């Protein structure tokens, strides 16, 4: 695979997960269970949109076809999106949102730890910057997992169900393809095998502390690397992309 194509794909993968999760979290705006949580989730969504924007700008630069970050966000179809399957899953109840967030925050925390040593200076800088913010995200979601898991029967059963339902989408986070191989050789990409080990250890620890069971499901749904998504992404994009597609070139 050509280096430039690989780097472009890699940037899209990172950017899209940030963008899509940011959109999902923004759906909570005005609907949070308590005011502080409403504010917290929107703060976190804002960090993700910041990371997504910077990464899409870099993707556009790497591609070199004169597309902007907005073109990439609003004018690509579902099959061209490279976000992880986990982040496109619907919000569900608050337990499901928190479980999804915790699984992804733990991944991002260890992934960016490694990416900040990338030989690609832009990716390394963005990772170092994002890591500071992600540390706060991870703390927030971990504490809620503990509170719900070790809380009432109702909260315990809800968050256990959430982890059981989402588990099959976690394998996709660690799938590697030719894009990774090409960039690994140059010291740009992150080797996901050690990231997976750290992720498993930390997730197990927190779940155990929260008196929750690690789901024993072994089937893992893959596909995001090739743009094969669950049905939920299409609906999300239809809403997110509506305005610029209906009124091309619209300005504030």
């Amino acid at each position: 695979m050509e280096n430039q194509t690989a780097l472009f794909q890699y940037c899209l993968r990172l950017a899209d997960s940030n963008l899509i999760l940011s959109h999902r979290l923004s759906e909570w705006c005005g609907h949070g269970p308590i005011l502080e949580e409403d504010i917290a989730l929107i703060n976190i969504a804002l960090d993700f949109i910041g990371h997504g924007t910077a990464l899409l700008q870099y993707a556009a630069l790497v591609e070199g076809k004169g597309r902007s970050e907005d073109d990439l966000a609003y004018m690509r179809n579902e099959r061209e999106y490279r976000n992880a399957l986990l982040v496109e899953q619907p919000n569900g109840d608050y337990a499901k949102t928190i479980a999804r967030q915790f699984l992804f925050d733990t991944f991002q925390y260890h992934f960016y730890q490694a990416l900040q040593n990338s030989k690609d200076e832009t990716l390394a800088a963005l990772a170092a910057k994002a890591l500071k913010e992600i540390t706060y995200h991870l703390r927030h979601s971990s504490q809620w997992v503990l509170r719900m898991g070790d809380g009432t029967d109702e909260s315990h059963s809800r968050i256990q169900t959430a982890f059981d339902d989402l588990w099959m989408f976690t394998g996709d986070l660690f799938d590697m393809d030719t894009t990774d191989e090409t960039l690994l050789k140059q010291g740009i990409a992150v080797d996901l095998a050690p990231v997976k080990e750290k992720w498993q250890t930390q997730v197990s620890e927190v779940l155990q502390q929260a008196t929750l069971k690690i789901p024993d499901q072994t089937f893992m749904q893959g596909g995001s690397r090739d743009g094969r998504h669950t049905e939920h992404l299409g609906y999300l994009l239809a809403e997110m992309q509506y305005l610029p597609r209906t009124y091309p070139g619209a300005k504030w």
Partner: protein
Amino acid sequence: MVELCLSKQLKIIAELPTKESIIKLLSAIPDPEIPVINIFELGVLRNVELINGTCIVTITPTYSGCPAMKLIENQISAALKAEGINEVQIKMVYSPPWTTDWISDEAKEKLRQYGIAPPEKSTMDKGILLGKNKQPACPQCSSINTSMISQFGSTACKALYRCNNCKEPFDYFKCI
């Protein structure tokens, strides 16, 4: 007419901007969210260079998604244009990443007087992950008998606290 043009030109040459004068000029721009401190003492304005008549201004965001950055960029351009500097390039950098350690002591005192508890010394401690909170002093009554309400406050850079002594809620500028 010729004389007029010439005198105008001379005036411009006489007041040719320098790096220092531009930083001074841009230091008048307040942070849009916390107007008591300016973008220079906050550490958002990183550098000013004058290269071949172009003014290159380097800025860095406090938080990646800070919505104030676009406004700050516009204000920088407007301030420079008002001084007759039209060739402006604004560069956004992410490295080194912004840290609360860059906020000057003077600015921290301004924050406190404004009612925002300034960031405690030294950036990111691992205590964040372990659930150990910083104990900022109440900006109203200086009591350290305070507790955290939420790690996420009114803007990305702040957490929400309450003073157990005077019962006032307050914003804390959290360390990153």
